[in-house]
C-alpha cells in the first residue's frame, strides 16, 4: 500500500510538471474562480465595515452617553468629561447639545436630521468630519453666529438622498435662518459645507457650543457625550465609566447600529446568496476543467492498466494530481485576494456610500478554500475512477 501511494504521487507530480503551461492555465482558472467567489463577500464585508466606521467616525463616536430617561440634559457634564478623559486608553471625549431645528434660506427650507452645538477642538478628536470640508472651513472655538452644514442639507449636487430643490442650495457666506424647537429663531452665517460621504453626518449641521448654550439658556450641561476608544474595547470602557459613578445611559456604536441593522442584515442575506452561487460556480468550473483534462489521459490510463498498474493506484494518482491543481489555485487565490484587499486598504473604493475597503473574513477564505479543494478532489476522483474501470482496449485504441 505504501509503495502504491508513492507510485501515485510519482505519476501525479510527473504529469503535472510535464505540462507546465496547462498546469499554469488550470491554476489560473482556479485562482480566478477563487477570487470571484470571495470578492463579493469581501466587498459586502467592506461595506458593512464602512457603515460601522462611518457611525464611529462621523456621527456617534465609539460610545455615546445620553441623559437618563426623564432628563433633558446630562448634568455636571464638564466633571464627567474630566473623569472620562482621565481613564487610561480613552482617546478623546466631547460634549454636544442636540436641537430640533428647521433651516431656511430665503424661500427655501430644509430639515436636517441632526443639529448640534459642539466644542470644535474636542469634537475634532472624536469626529473626523473636519477632514471633509467641501467648501469653507470647520468651526473654531471663538466662532459666534457661524454654522457649518452637511452636504445633504446644504445641497450643491453631491447629495445621496435629497433632490436639489429639497435642500437649502446654500454656499459659504449665505445667511441661514434657523428656527429651534424651543421657539428661538436665529440667523447664522455659513462658514463651511462638509461631505464625509456617509449616510448620517451629511444631513447634520453644527454651531459652536457657546451659541448653543445661549439659545438653550443653560451652561455646563450636555445633550450627549461622545467618547472615542479603540474599536473592540467599547464594552470594557462602558463598565469603567459606570464604575466611576456616571449613571447616565450608555450606547456603543453597535447599539446605534440597530437603526442600520436592516441594511446590514440585508447585506448579509445578499452575501450568503451570492457566495453560495459563487462557490457553486467554482465547484462546477473546477470539476469541468479537471474532467476535460482527464479525457486526454485515456490512453495513458490504458497503458498503465496494461502493464499491471491497478485501478486504485491510477485513480489515486489522478486525484492527487487534481489536488495539486486545487491546492496551487487556492494558494495563488489567497495571495491574489490578500494583495487586492491590501491595495484597497490604501486606496479604498470611492462609492456613493463612502469609501469602502473590501475585506475578507478568515471564515470566508476557509469556506472557499475547502469548497475548492473538495471540488478538485471530486473533479479528479469521479472521472479517473470511471476511466480506470474501462476496458484497456477501449482506453488505448478508441
Amino acid at each position: 500500500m505504501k509503495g502504491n501511494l508513492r507510485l501515485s504521487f510519482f505519476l501525479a507530480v510527473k504529469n503535472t510538471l510535464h505540462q507546465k503551461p496547462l498546469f499554469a492555465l488550470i491554476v489560473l482558472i482556479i485562482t480566478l474562480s477563487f477570487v470571484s467567489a470571495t470578492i463579493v463577500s469581501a466587498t459586502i464585508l467592506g461595506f458593512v465595515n464602512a457603515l460601522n466606521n462611518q457611525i464611529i467616525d462621523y456621527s456617534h463616536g465609539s460610545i455615546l452617553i445620553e441623559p437618563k430617561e426623564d432628563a433633558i440634559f446630562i448634568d455636571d457634564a464638564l466633571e464627567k468629561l474630566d473623569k472620562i478623559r482621565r481613564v487610561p486608553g480613552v482617546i478623546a471625549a466631547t460634549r454636544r447639545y442636540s436641537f430640533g431645528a428647521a433651516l431656511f434660506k430665503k424661500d427655501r427650507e430644509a430639515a436636517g436630521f441632526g443639529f448640534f452645538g459642539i466644542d470644535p477642538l474636542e469634537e475634532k478628536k472624536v469626529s473626523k468630519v473636519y477632514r471633509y470640508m467641501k467648501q469653507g472651513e470647520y468651526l473654531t472655538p471663538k466662532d459666534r453666529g457661524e454654522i457649518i452644514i452637511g452636504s445633504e442639507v446644504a445641497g450643491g449636487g453631491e447629495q445621496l438622498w435629497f433632490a436639489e430643490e429639497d435642500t437649502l442650495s446654500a454656499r459659504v457666506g449665505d445667511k441661514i435662518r434657523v428656527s429651534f424647537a424651543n421657539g428661538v429663531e436665529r440667523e447664522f452665517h455659513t462658514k463651511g459645507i462638509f461631505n464625509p460621504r456617509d449616510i448620517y453626518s451629511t444631513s447634520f449641521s453644527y454651531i459652536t457650543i457657546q451659541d448653543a448654550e445661549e439659545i438653550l439658556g443653560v451652561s455646563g450641561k450636555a445633550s450627549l457625550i461622545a467618547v472615542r476608544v479603540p474599536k473592540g474595547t467599547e464594552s470594557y470602557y462602558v463598565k469603567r465609566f459606570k464604575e466611576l459613578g456616571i449613571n447616565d445611559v450608555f450606547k456603543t456604536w453597535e447599539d446605534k447600529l440597530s437603526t442600520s441593522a436592516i441594511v446590514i442584515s440585508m447585506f448579509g442575506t445578499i452575501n450568503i446568496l451570492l457566495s453560495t452561487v459563487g462557490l457553486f460556480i467554482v465547484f462546477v468550473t473546477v470539476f469541468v476543467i479537471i474532467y476535460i483534462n482527464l479525457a486526454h489521459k485515456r490512453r495513458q490510463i490504458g497503458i498503465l492498466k496494461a502493464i499491471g498498474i491497478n485501478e486504485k493506484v491510477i485513480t489515486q494518482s489522478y486525484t492527487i494530481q487534481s489536488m495539486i491543481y486545487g491546492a496551487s489555485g487556492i494558494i495563488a487565490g489567497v495571495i491574489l485576494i490578500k494583495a487586492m484587499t491590501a491595495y484597497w486598504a490604501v486606496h479604498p473604493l470611492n462609492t456613493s456610500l463612502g469609501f469602502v475597503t473590501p475585506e475578507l473574513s478568515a471564515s470566508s477564505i476557509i469556506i472557499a478554500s475547502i469548497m475548492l479543494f473538495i471540488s478538485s478532489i471530486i473533479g479528479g476522483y469521479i472521472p479517473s475512477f470511471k476511466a480506470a474501470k474501462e476496458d484497456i482496449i477501449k482506453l488505448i485504441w478508441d
Partner: protein
Amino acid sequence: MPKAIVEAKDLKKIYRMGKVDVPALGGVNVDIREGEYVAIMGPSGSGKSTLLHLLALLDTPSSGRIFIEGTDVSDMSEDEKSSFRLNRLGYIFQEYNILAELTALENTYLPAMMQGKNKSEYTKLGREALELVDMGDRAHHLPSELSGGEQQRVSIARALINKPRILFADEPTANLDSRSSHSILNLFRKLNKELGLTVAMVTHEPEDTKIVDRVLNLKDGLITNILKSPTILNCEHCNCKVYEDGAITRTREGKTHVFCSENCAESFEAE
C-alpha cells in the same frame, strides 16, 4: 515435451459495433509451451491482435477458457488479472507505448515500483533491464529524445523488469526501419535462447518467422495451420517466400524444385 505455459480452449471473441456483431475469433485452440518462441501470422483483420489481447489478459473473451501456467484465469477479477499482468506477463505494443513525461529509466521501473520495491531496488532493476536492451546509456532521456527503435527498446525493458514468464509482442517492429526491426528481433531471440523466456509475437513479415519455433497461422478468426520450425524457401518461379511445409514441389531430372503455388509450378513445367 515442455509443459504448456499458456493454453486457450475454444476462444471466441465477438465485438459489438452498435447493433452489428463483428466476429473476430471463432473458436481458437492454442497452447504455447515453456521456452517456446511462437509467431502468430495471418492477413490483416484475421484476429491476431485480438488473440494476443485475450492471451495477455488485456481483454475478455466472449467465450472459451484461458489457462496460464495451469491456472484458469478466465473468471479472475480485474485486480487479480492486473496483478497477473504485473508479475507474470510482459506486453509490447506496436506503438511504443511509453509515457511521455517519464525518462527511459522511469518508464522502465514503473512496474517494479508498483510491486512495492524500494527506490534502490527498482532503480537497480531498471538499469539492468535497460542494459539488457542496450539502452543503458539512454537512461535519463525522455521519449521525445529517443528514436522509435529506442523507444521500443524501453518498452521491452519495461516489459522485462518484473521477470515475466512470457512476453507478448504485437507487431513490435511494424513502425520501425529495417535495421531497428532486425536488432529487436535478434533481441527477442537472445532473450528466448539465453534466458529461456517464452515469446509470443504477432508479425506479418514471413522473414521474421525464420527464427521462431512455431508459426500459428490465423485466417478469419481461426487457426488454419501450425507450422513447426519452418524453413523458408524461395519460389523458383516468382522468387517469393514460401514455408517449406506449404511449398509445392516438382522433381525434374532427379532435382527437387520449390514453388509457392500450383500456378508457379505449372508455369515452371511449361518452360
